[in-house]
């Protein structure tokens, strides 16, 4: 498995693939079992949002390094309808899909870094990172 890969997302089957690949890559970095689960769950949420709201898009995974920190980067991007009010979308319980509205704010809690850029009519891009702990050396 390379250090970087992108998975085209166009159906709910791809959600399973995305989180499996994410788990694999993260496992190579030495994340704990709990952290692997957190990462896979966050990937599941953002990938499902693509399928649900934008129909198609892409999920990219890569290993990132910052100083002596190593981690995984997850980027979910689509050219879907975009999100008119990001602040609202990031609130627990806000959903236009009659769902729980926990996907985005929840994914943010599961990861160390979370950034969302979206423009109505252009698309949405969610960038998330998680760093390996206790890896000072």
């Amino acid at each position, binding site marked *: 498995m390379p250090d970087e890969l992108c998975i085209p997302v166009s159906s*709910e089957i791809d*959600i*399973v693939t995305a989180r499996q690949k994410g788990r694999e890559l993260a496992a190579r970095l030495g994340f704990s079992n*709990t952290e692997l689960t957190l990462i896979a769950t966050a990937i599941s949420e953002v990938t*499902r949002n693509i399928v649900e709201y934008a129909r198609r898009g892409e999920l990219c995974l890569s290993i990132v390094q910052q100083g002596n920190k190593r981690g995984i980067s997850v980027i979910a991007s689509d050219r879907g309808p975009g999100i008119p009010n990001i602040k609202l979308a990031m609130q627990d319980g806000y959903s236009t899909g009659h*769902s*729980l509205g926990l996907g985005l704010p929840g994914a943010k809690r599961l990861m160390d870094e979370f950034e969302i850029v979206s423009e109505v009519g252009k698309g949405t891009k969610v960038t998330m990172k998680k760093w390996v702990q206790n890896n000072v050396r």
Partner: protein
Amino acid sequence: MLVPILKQGDYLIASIQSELSDADLLKLRDDLVSRVGEFHSRGVIVDVTVLDVMDSFATRTLRAMAHMIMLRGAETVIVGIQPEVAFSMVQLGLKLEGVETALDLEEGLTLLDHRTKGDNKRAR
């Protein structure tokens, strides 16, 4: 991936065998809800031991399923949620409100026995 559903006395037991796609999960929900009616089951156990991710969709679907089953007069117990998965679920903000949970199949059966026996007493 189909989930086998076993009928054991008054109960139905669904043991998930591998990671499920959304469609698989929806199918499981529909199957269980219809079988509960068909067999007049009093309890349902869904064993999720093998699942290493329970995201908002899975949680919402299981919750909705338990409510539908309740409307048909049976109890649902979700068993086998792994420590990491439980941790991840609460971090995400997910709860299985109104759904019983137990450590594993054995505990789930004990719980159902307990609860349906209570119902019996009340019924008499």
